[in-house]
């Protein structure tokens, strides 16, 4: 009964979304206030019904209703309740419903938080989001119905959730990632509404900015969680693989960075208007492309969902409609004449333009690498796979170049600046950065040129920010007052840029300084790695809720003091028979200690054991968290609140806004 309710709710949601896509748009065209005014209500209504549908599916999972095919295939009565819940999105159908739910949430958020927008703009924005919702809801209903029943012949128990997905990180990784992906639909909808209205001005950029920043922040956290999960769950200490599905989330993230910076220029200076619109379309298109790649089966990947050509065709048609349609609109409506506002080559604008170029090149590089096998196959040139060497070869120089110019960013001025002023401002930071580059690697295991370069660039970024911060707080009577005077968006920028610096350090230090050893060890053996002594104390059999495991118990000590106890496991999941490695990690700000079990060797209870010493690996994820927090911080800016208040006062003139 409950699954049927969910199914009907989904159908109602589709109908509401269809009305949302059509009626307010028609109203905007005919300047009909009544039908435009229905848009927020329809948006919330869609959310309510998608929400009911999602709740029904979650209930089916939590109640072990194995008559539902999805539950039977992806859950098991022994599964802990929290994983039964996360199993809802551990598969194609359920994750698509989650996607639709999150889209409905964003749409409602826009409807409820944007009362300040001119009704005309709001109704267009919501209509565009409604149209996207129609696409996803019908995709769900027509090709991937999550409520399909297995009647008769209900299985006694389910075939369990993929053990790799039975992990706390994976409970929130997909929702965060989707919050990011789908959040870019807001920027997209604003861009389309602006094109439809024919007015691409600073106010359009100002409306889009907080939404874009939040979406990007979610995506940053989602990608970070995915990388962290891979690190401890796959059992060999890797954290990024350039897998097509990872790339699918990385591309909108990169394009999102370009969009965020380009929006800043458009808002502050009224420049790059057509370019920013194009980036907004591009970023969301990449989110959709990611969906296509993951769910259509055109590329192989560890993460790929079970695929079906009908689904691929559906998303491709949808993609063609959304992207093709919006690009056609762009070609017809975007201002073809370049703005009359000008800027000098030495200015903040050109630095931001440089940022845009770097991130666009980076995005296209990843896109090309991801699609290369497909393109070669389609051209009949054989089957290829593109590996990490290609991506690293392109990415490392690009990011080094970026960091060099990024240090200039915060201290630079709009419109026109001078090289001699930059020289004056940054001579000291540059000297200190070089000193850091030369000395900091001495703290590491051995002197390493890559680490030196990373230290140099990160110090350059941090010192440039510090210099700028110093100028901003210098005039205040006390330091505290000076800091309080800074706007949240400035703090956001600061956090995000610091996060980027931390990422550079973390990635390079851990790639260069990691020590790992693969050993045959049996209880009683000890091993010293990077100054830590690992004692293999005993081997035990443990039983989890739905698995049995061999557990190796280690004591780790340094200079005779016990640092920690680690107990990696080799788990065998009962329902599926799959074997999983559960690494044991002692995390730290400056180093992680990592123990994973390989295979049993010989008959005397010896195992292949992998020991890792991973310096500063956390900096990478901390950096990503900083970037995410930075993205969230910008939205606290007073000017968005002021905008809301003033708009409320000027509600009378709402209709004349566009």
């Amino acid at each position, binding site marked *: 009964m409950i699954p049927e309710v969910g199914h009907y709710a989904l159908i109602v949601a589709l109908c509401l979304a269809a009305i949302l896509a059509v009626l307010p748009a028609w109203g905007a065209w005919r300047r009909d206030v009544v039908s435009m005014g229905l848009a927020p209500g329809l948006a919330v209504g869609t959310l309510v019904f998608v929400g009911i549908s999602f709740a029904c599916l979650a209930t089916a999972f939590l109640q072990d209703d194995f008559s539902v095919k999805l539950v039977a295939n992806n859950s098991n009565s022994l599964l802990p309740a929290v994983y039964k819940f996360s199993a809802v999105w551990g598969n194609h159908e359920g994750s698509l419903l989650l996607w639709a739910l999150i889209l409905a949430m964003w749409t409602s958020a826009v409807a409820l938080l944007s009362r300040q927008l001119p009704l005309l703009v709001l109704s267009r924005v919501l209509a565009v989001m409604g149209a996207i919702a129609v696409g996803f809801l019908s995709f769900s209903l027509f090709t991937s119905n999550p409520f399909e029943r297995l009647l008769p012949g209900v299985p006694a128990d389910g075939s369990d959730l993929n053990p*790799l997905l039975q992990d706390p990180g994976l409970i929130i990784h997909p929702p965060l990632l989707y919050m990011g992906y789908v959040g870019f639909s807001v920027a997209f909808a604003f861009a389309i509404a602006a094109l439809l209205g024919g007015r691409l001005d600073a106010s359009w950029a100002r409306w889009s900015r907080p939404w874009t920043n939040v979406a990007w922040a979610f995506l940053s956290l989602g990608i970070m969680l995915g990388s962290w999960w*891979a690190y401890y769950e*796959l*059992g*060999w200490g*890797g954290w990024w*693989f350039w*897998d097509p599905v990872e790339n699918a989330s990385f591309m909108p993230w990169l394009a999102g960075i370009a969009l965020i910076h380009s929006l800043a220029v458009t808002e502050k200076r009224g420049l790059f208007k*057509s370019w920013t619109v*194009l980036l907004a*379309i*591009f970023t969301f*298109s990449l989110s959709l492309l990611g969906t*296509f790649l993951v769910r*259509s*089966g*055109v*590329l*192989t990947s*560890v993460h790929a969902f079970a695929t079906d*050509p009908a689904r*691929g*065709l559906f998303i*491709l048609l949808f*993609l*063609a409609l959304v*992207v*093709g349609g919006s*690009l*056609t609109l*762009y*070609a*017809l409506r*975007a201002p*073809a*004449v370049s703005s009359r506002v000008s800027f000098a080559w030495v200015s903040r604008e050109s630095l931001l333009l440089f940022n845009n170029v770097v991130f666009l090149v980076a995005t296209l590089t990843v896109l090309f690498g991801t*699609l290369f*096998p*497909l*393109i070669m*196959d*389609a051209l009949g040139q*054989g*089957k*290829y*796979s593109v*590996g*990490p060497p290609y991506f690293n070869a392109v990415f490392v120089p690009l990011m080094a170049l970026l960091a060099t110019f990024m240090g200039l960013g915060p201290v630079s001025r709009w419109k026109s600046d001078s090289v001699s002023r930059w020289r004056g401002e940054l001579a000291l930071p540059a000297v200190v950065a070089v000193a850091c580059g030369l000395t900091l690697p001495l703290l590491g295991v051995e002197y390493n040129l890559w680490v030196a370069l990373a230290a140099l660039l990160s110090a350059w970024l941090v010192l440039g920010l510090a210099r700028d911060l110093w100028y901003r707080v210098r005039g205040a009577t006390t330091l505290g007052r000076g800091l309080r005077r800074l706007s949240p968006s400035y703090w956001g920028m600061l956090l995000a840029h610091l996060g980027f610096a931390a990422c550079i350090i973390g990635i390079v230090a851990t790639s260069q300084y990691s020590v790992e050893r*693969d050993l045959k060890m049996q209880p009683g053996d000890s091993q010293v790695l990077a100054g830590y002594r690992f004692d293999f104390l005993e081997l035990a059999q443990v039983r989890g809720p739905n698995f049995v495991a061999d557990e190796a118990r280690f004591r780790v000590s340094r200079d005779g003091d016990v640092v920690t106890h680690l107990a990696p496991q080799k788990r065998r999941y009962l329902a*599926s*028979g*799959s*074997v999983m490695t559960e690494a044991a990690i002692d995390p730290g700000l400056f180093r992680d200690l990592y123990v994973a079990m*390989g*295979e049993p*060797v010989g008959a005397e209870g010896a195992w*292949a054991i*992998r020991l890792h010493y991973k310096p500063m690996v956390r900096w990478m994820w901390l950096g990503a968290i900083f970037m995410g927090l930075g993205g969230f911080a910008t939205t606290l800016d007073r000017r968005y609140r002021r905008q809301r208040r003033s708009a409320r006062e000027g509600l009378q003139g709402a209709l004349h806004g566009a």
Partner: protein
Amino acid sequence: MGPRLKLFIPLILFAVLALFLFRGLELDPKELPSALIDRPLPSFELPALGGDRMLRREDVIGEVALFNVWATWCVSCRVEHPYLHMLAEQGVPIIGLNYKDDDTDALRWLEELGNPYRVNIVDAQGTLGLDLGVYGAPETYLVDAGGVIRYRHVGVVDERVWQDILQPLYRELKTGRVN
């Protein structure tokens, strides 16, 4: 080119991309080019992993076996590895094709995770992979006693794949019911 026409460039680029994606839908990356099914394994002369011995096609055929394409850079191969062990313990002969990999890394991997392979062919340049039409690792080919490729599976071989697809075929080939 007029300024308005320039704005059409993104649309045109997307149209080209969409064509490729459409074509991609028909091409299943997991499917063996039909030309190779029921055709003999391509001939080759490549070194064996961890030795100076050269291997030829004749050295690795003779019984029904799995040819497993793997590499240390391949994440899924790690996931697959324990299952291959189980198959090897059940007596299924597995020939490894170490694809575009580094010998030292590969040997260390086998030392650490164990070696389920009868023998490993080193295909550092990917030449044999090219003849086979390897899309990426892991891939597994079922080759019969006469050295004829009977099935290709792209992706991880796990309990489900083995039980549902490979094992029935493997049994049939072993008992000689096919051909």
